């Protein structure tokens, strides 16, 4: 057991830090203009790629460096610590492609995915298929050498900025619902695709819905065999938030420091109650960090992502939401009158942490399964 970096990891971290501090674009987080911010994130992806920081844990044959996911975690952590622009999520789309794609598809799609030339989103959920993904209704009907897609996708994170989409659609309505789904790789600029941002309660456009109206997809853009969509989706979801994606921990710690500063500015540091609450928030963050390190260690030791990730997901939601409650307690009316700019928005942004990517209730179901409790 060792929580420290190995010499190689330490070396990697040191080089990375130096690179980050020299490379992070000054003032990037002050950009208000939406398009400019998107462009910056895409440019950051390309910059990371050129420096060899994208897809580090991918197999070498697919353009990766074959490194342990610990290196991804270090990248995540240091990016968070140094407040770099958010990292591109290439892992889960990449894994779907290099696990299920034809050689030709791999050659076509993986390089621009890694390099940031093409950005991707995931068209899985629908209005009537949220937690219950297998109930999706979007259809892809084979007509000659094309599929024709109709339906509506929802909760498509990054849909408003993406170029391509990993789409799930029902290709066979006559078989059990898990078996009639296929996966497709499709450009979002095809005729018939409409993307509409979804504004969440915070007022921010956090995600998107995508409407598909007679969209034609060449058969060779199907990923995997017909009916293999469910299996592909499960692989993708399992890797969607891998144990190396720990940027949220660094973000949590930054928020905690902000809350500590709020308490200081408001002269609340003499109150034992406030001191305890702030320390409690620190403890929650540590618990989360340490639990994720254990998860990552399991992964490094060759275990596939399992339901233990549900523990971290629940701990994260609790930590994040409690921290926003604490900020609200400290700010009092100032959060409601807008004097404390952005905090109400942060509060509302913390709410779906227990909903998206499997609600808290679903996570508890998963843990009960893991405990082998009766169905």
């Amino acid at each position: 057991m060792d929580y420290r970096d190995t010499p190689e990891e330490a070396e990697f971290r040191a080089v990375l830090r130096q690179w980050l501090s020299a490379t992070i674009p000054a003032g990037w987080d002050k950009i208000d203009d939406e398009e400019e911010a998107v462009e910056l994130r895409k440019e950051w992806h390309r910059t990371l790629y050129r420096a060899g920081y994208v897809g580090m844990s991918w197999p070498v044959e697919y353009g990766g460096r074959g490194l342990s996911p610990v290196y991804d975690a270090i990248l995540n952590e240091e990016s968070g610590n140094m407040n770099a622009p958010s990292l591109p999520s290439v892992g889960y789309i990449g894994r779907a492609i290099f696990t299920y794609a034809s050689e030709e598809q791999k050659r076509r799609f993986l390089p621009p995915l890694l390099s940031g030339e093409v950005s991707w989103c995931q068209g899985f959920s629908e209005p009537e298929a949220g937690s219950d993904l297998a109930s999706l209704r979007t259809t892809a009907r084979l007509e000659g050498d094309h599929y024709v897609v109709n339906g509506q996708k929802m909760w498509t994170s990054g849909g408003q900025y993406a170029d391509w989409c990993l789409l799930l659609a029902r290709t066979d309505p006559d078989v059990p619902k898990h078996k009639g789904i296929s996966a497709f790789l499709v450009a979002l600029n095809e005729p018939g695709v409409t993307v509409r941002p979804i504004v969440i309660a915070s007022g921010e456009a956090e995600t998107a819905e995508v409407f598909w109206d007679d969209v034609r997809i060449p058969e060779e853009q199907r990923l995997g065999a017909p009916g293999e969509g469910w299996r592909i989706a499960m692989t993708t979801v399992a890797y969607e938030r891998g144990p190396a994606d720990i940027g949220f921990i660094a973000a949590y710690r930054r928020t905690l420091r902000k809350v500590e500063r709020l308490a200081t500015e408001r002269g609340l540091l003499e109150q034992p109650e406030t001191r305890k609450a702030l320390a409690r928030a620190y403890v929650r963050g540590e618990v989360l960090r340490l639990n994720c390190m254990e998860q990552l260690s399991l992964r490094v030791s060759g275990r596939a992502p399992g339901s233990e990730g549900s523990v971290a997901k629940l701990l994260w939601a609790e930590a994040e939401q409690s921290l926003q409650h604490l900020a609200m307690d400290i700010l009092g009316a100032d959060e409601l009158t807008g004097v404390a700019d952005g905090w109400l928005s942060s509060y509302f942004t913390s709410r779906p942490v227990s909903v998206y990517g499997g609600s808290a209730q679903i996570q508890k179901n998963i843990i009960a399964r893991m405990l082998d409790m009766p169905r």
Partner: protein
Amino acid sequence: MLALLSDEQQMLKEVAVQIAGSAGPANPSDLHTRDRAAAWQSLAQSGLLALRTRDDEGRPVGSGVEVAVVAEALGAGLVPVPYLGSAILATELLALAGAHDEAEALAQGVSRTGVLLDRDLSALARVPGDGPTYGWDVDGAAAALALTDSPDGPQVVRVSLETGFVPVAGADLTRTLVRSDGPIGAAHLTPVGRPLSPEDLQRWEALTLTAISADAVGVMRAAVARAVAYAKERVQYGVLIGSFQAVQHMCAEAYVSAESAASATNYAAWAVDELDPTEALMAARTAKAQCAAVARDVTETVMQVFGGIGQTYEHIAHVHTRRALTDRQVFGDEGTQLLRIADVRLTGE
């Protein structure tokens, strides 16, 4: 002892619920389209704005119970009119100060007046002062009431909102908030009526806390009802989500919380005019403490039951949350109330 609404109060409730039903939003975009002026006229015509004016014998036309009944209905409907600000808080201040004509004018629905609060939204502003101050629940109001010190006790004063105040995009989407960052000078204050006694102020605070609590109860009960209704129609995994015990228990817990707040508020409402001011205020603080303790949790649980859709701006859920968060804070949050209660319990203050 009979802790139930009378038949008349039950009828009043039905009137209020009906008005709230047509004036309240079904989703946030309705807030731009609902005819607020018409809603206000309905309330005036039904006499609901006149509850805290005084009758010929100087007694309130409607008791604290009636106020709570109406406030709960309007809270439940998320109705975007300044009922609390103008018809209850300001009207009662005017009536206590003996400014009956002005109270009557508000009751007619012709003019509206709000209240001016301190930076923390936790008390009536004391003016003149350095600010910032907030006009709260001032939709359509040209002025707000505050207090100033006079040799004979606290004096109600009118502060014009026409100059020096800017609209605030606050958390609450259903009640209007304005801010003045500059000082409110003595020249801008118009005294109204006679100075208040300490008992007047206690009574006023008891009514205020109770009315806000009732609003919060309405918000919570309606939010829970919406979540329960959704759980009965939303299908996932081939079954109604309301058939999952986890969802049932979330709803049951939120229901218990809302009902607990209602029980405390009903008593506070009765106490406003029936007990002496100290006891009435204690009951009101108890109600406000309980409402504040559960309001955030209840509306968050409701958002959780609604799942993804409940997190979106287009959905009504966060409008409940925003109004609940405001009710929680205005005139003192849970901690504030608890410390006052502790003063009474532990040191007999």
